[in-house]
């Protein structure tokens, strides 16, 4: 039904493997054809832009250029928040002035016009035609499961680049996830920062960020957190037990990608997208929710 370019990003081959599998499964179900950008490269997130602006723009611009080689101007959907941000920056830089474009083209050594729009997975899936297609394929229901949709920074900010529906209280993911019968909670930390790579290079300073997000989600009654980014998920999921240890806390909030919930409710077997591979145990909550929700009416 819908065909677009797809930029997976480097994490998808490693910690984001489950996310990738769930994306593939959902795409197959709804007839969404995701064409990986031929010979894509790392977009440079999250290091390049702190070191050199030209490098930070050129790396993602090369991906734009590769997608353009087909002509046709097909949209490029990006599944990672950081990659999405960098690709948008690059496209807007190319479109900003002929001089900037020439500079970038000289660095990547190929033409790059910015002809192909860049969209986030959230924007893609919240379009009415995709929402309908998803709805049509849902067979199971997460009736009443309280989820905290976590958007993070870069699908929301800076709003001129990310173009969210609302930079402080985005609702795209909430609307998508609500299709499964899950109940997105209203909470305050949807767009607060998870610390990104500072969880590696400045962990002491960055750990409180995760703690605050988990606490607020829990405070607002969430049973789990849903994201649309491999890095956000990794930080909230993999580091969760350590955070509990450091800051105190005896609860666990499983972390899912929104496509995992969709896949699950489309009847895809959780093993097929590695639900059991989450760091914070994620299978039990889903099993119970599905039992409670049953089949879609």
């Amino acid at each position: 039904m819908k065909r677009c370019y797809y930029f997976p990003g480097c994490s998808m081959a490693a910690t984001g493997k489950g996310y990738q599998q769930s994306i593939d499964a959902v795409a197959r179900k709804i007839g969404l054809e995701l064409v990986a950008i031929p010979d894509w490269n790392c977009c440079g997130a999250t290091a390049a832009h702190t070191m050199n602006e030209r490098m930070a723009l050129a790396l993602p611009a090369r991906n734009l250029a590769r997608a353009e080689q087909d002509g046709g101007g097909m949209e490029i959907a990006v599944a990672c928040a950081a990659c999405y941000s960098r690709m948008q920056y690059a496209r807007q830089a190319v479109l900003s002035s002929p001089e900037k474009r020439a500079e970038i083209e000289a660095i990547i050594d190929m033409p790059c016009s910015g002809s192909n729009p860049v969209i986030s997975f959230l924007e893609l899936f919240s379009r009415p035609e995709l929402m309908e297609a998803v709805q049509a394929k849902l067979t199971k229901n997460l009736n009443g499961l309280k989820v905290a949709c976590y958007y993070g920074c870069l699908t929301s900010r800076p709003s001129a680049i990310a173009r969210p529906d609302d930079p402080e209280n985005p609702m795209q993911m909430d609307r998508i996830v609500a299709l499964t019968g899950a109940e997105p909670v209203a909470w305050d930390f949807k767009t607060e920062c998870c610390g990104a790579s500072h969880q590696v290079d400045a962990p002491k300073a960055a750990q409180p960020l995760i703690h605050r997000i988990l606490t607020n989600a829990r405070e607002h009654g969430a049973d789990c957190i849903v994201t649309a980014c491999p890095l956000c998920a990794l930080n909230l999921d993999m580091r969760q037990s350590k955070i509990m240890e450091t800051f105190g806390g005896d609860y666990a909030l499983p972390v899912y990608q929104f496509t995992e919930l969709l896949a699950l409710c489309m009847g895809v077997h959780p093993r097929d997208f590695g639900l059991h591979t989450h760091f914070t145990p994620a299978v039990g909550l889903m099993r119970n929710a599905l039992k409670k929700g049953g089949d879609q009416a």
Partner: protein
Amino acid sequence: MSRIGVVVCHCGTNIAGVVDVERVAAEAAKLPNVVFAVTNKYTCSEPGQATMKAAIEEHQLDRLVICSCSPRMHEATFRRMLKDTRINPYMLEIANLREQCAWVHTDKEKATEKAIDLMRMAVAKVEQNKPLFTSTIPIHKKCLIIGGGIAGIQAALDVADAGYQVTIVEREPSIGGHMVMLDKTFPTLDCSACISTPKMVDVGQHPNITLMTSSEVVNVGGYVGSFEVTIKQKARYVDHTKCTGCGLCETKCPTKVPSEFNQGYNKRTAIYKPFAQAVPAKPVIDPDSCKMLKEGKCGVCAKVCPLGCIDFKDTAKEYTETYGAIIVATGYDLIPWQDLYGEYGGGRYADVITGLQFERLVNASGPTEGHILRPSDGTEPKDVVIIKCVGSRDPHKGKSYCSRACCMYSAKHAHQILEKLPGANVYIFYMDVRTPGKGYEEFYDRTRADGAVYIRGRVSKIYKENGKLVCKGEDTLLGKPVSVQADMVVLATAMVPAVGVEKLTTMLGIATDPDKWVQEAHPKLRPVETQTGGIFLAGTCQGPKDIPDTVAQASAAAVKVCGLFSKDEMETSPMISGVDQQKCCGCGFCVNCCPYKAISLVEIDAREGARRVKKTVASVNSGLCQGCGCCTAACRTGAIDLSGYTNAQILKEVDALCL
């Protein structure tokens, strides 16, 4: 042969500091027909004017060029001066060497060259000037006031007390505006309703005041002295000529909806008076909630009304009247912060409220009878945070301006909380504390003495944790991020122009600034006038202000109206358009482009050779024409011309500059 005098003004150093005025005068003296050219230190001053008058006699001048400030400043002054001389006041040209030259340039040589050009243009134009004579129009001594808040009320009482007829148009069912919603007023803490309701009663009872509530202006025509205004009164479904305001209907009405007056914190009935002291003290039916009007069943009010005042078949009525002057007093609304500040919860938290909502919560006649209780659960808050500048001084999300009243009412709120809730804590996040008013700084001192904690910094986010509203800010004086856990948060939200004001200003043909505040004619010297004659302004329609300033401005506007009404007729500017019917082809271009609806097409008897024919031509209404000149630019046959700015005059100016 004309005899032209040229006076070049120093304006102290305003002009002479940049322009070599002596050189300008010397160059003027070289021009043909210029028989007198001098400089003067302050041309507009008494001695300056005397010098010119003497020169006019001595040199038998018949026209005059004054090189000085903008004609908007002193053209009228100099025309008045010429009335006592042999020269017609319109044989005068002003070259603007100040605003359009000295003030905007620094290079003295180039500025002087430009000044000489401007002077030469004015001399060339004045050669073509012809004496013009003013005419008069009658003044209908009846004033329309749009808006029944404290500004409209004050202006109405002042004009009416002076003996003139006044009509107040108010779109709500009662006059009173925002002021009557407030609890106490800073810095004196007198009760807002106690001081404003007597004025409302005076308005209701004044023999010279006609009150039209539930009404809006729907059309405005005419001009100063005789505006034709159509007012639409919405259906009220209650015959106010019979109703005594007994209130029985209100007690029996079964439909309850949130009260606008109490900011939604309690309910009113579908047949209602907005509040107890409403003027008129008679109810109306809200058609959006009345069961009878919506579903055709109920009618309890009609059954209980002892005088049979209820009329479910009532319809809107339109009235057209002539007014000599109009005062715009449409007031303000609060910025819709929920749509702009997601970081403050975007309206998701019941206990994050606006200052106006707080006024109702603290008001003895309000929904909580003056007990400060949280809207969410009706408990007393212990820790209250007040955040200032929400929407003000925020060009990114809100408005760039300061809303002027918030610093003081926030201090007042803090004082009231600390007074009414012993043991409570108040934290005020501010950027600057602005207290330029009599007794204001002292009130701020007192609030700090009461125990209010002022924290210099803007709050970045409010979120809920452990049942508290956590306000994250920076104490910029400490240089540290801080948070305060609050039970209730009061936002000092920006004032914005009242909803719908644009429609009205378009109807009235008056200008607004980029924020849609009504533009005054001059920010300092004509603060209550608009650019359109006969239309004045009062209160917050012009920009944020507090009650004292609003009332002062309302009285000022009233004086302007009384001044206008003190004469039976007024002079009109002769600098208006005229049509050469011979040349006019009746195309109607000018009709469409006239912003004042001053031109219409008329049929006249004309001659074509020996034949008599009917011909359609443009005709200018001299009362409506404001002399803007749009029509002269649009006219393809050159039939329309503007006295004082004729095509010939302007071409001479151009020639003087270019040839």
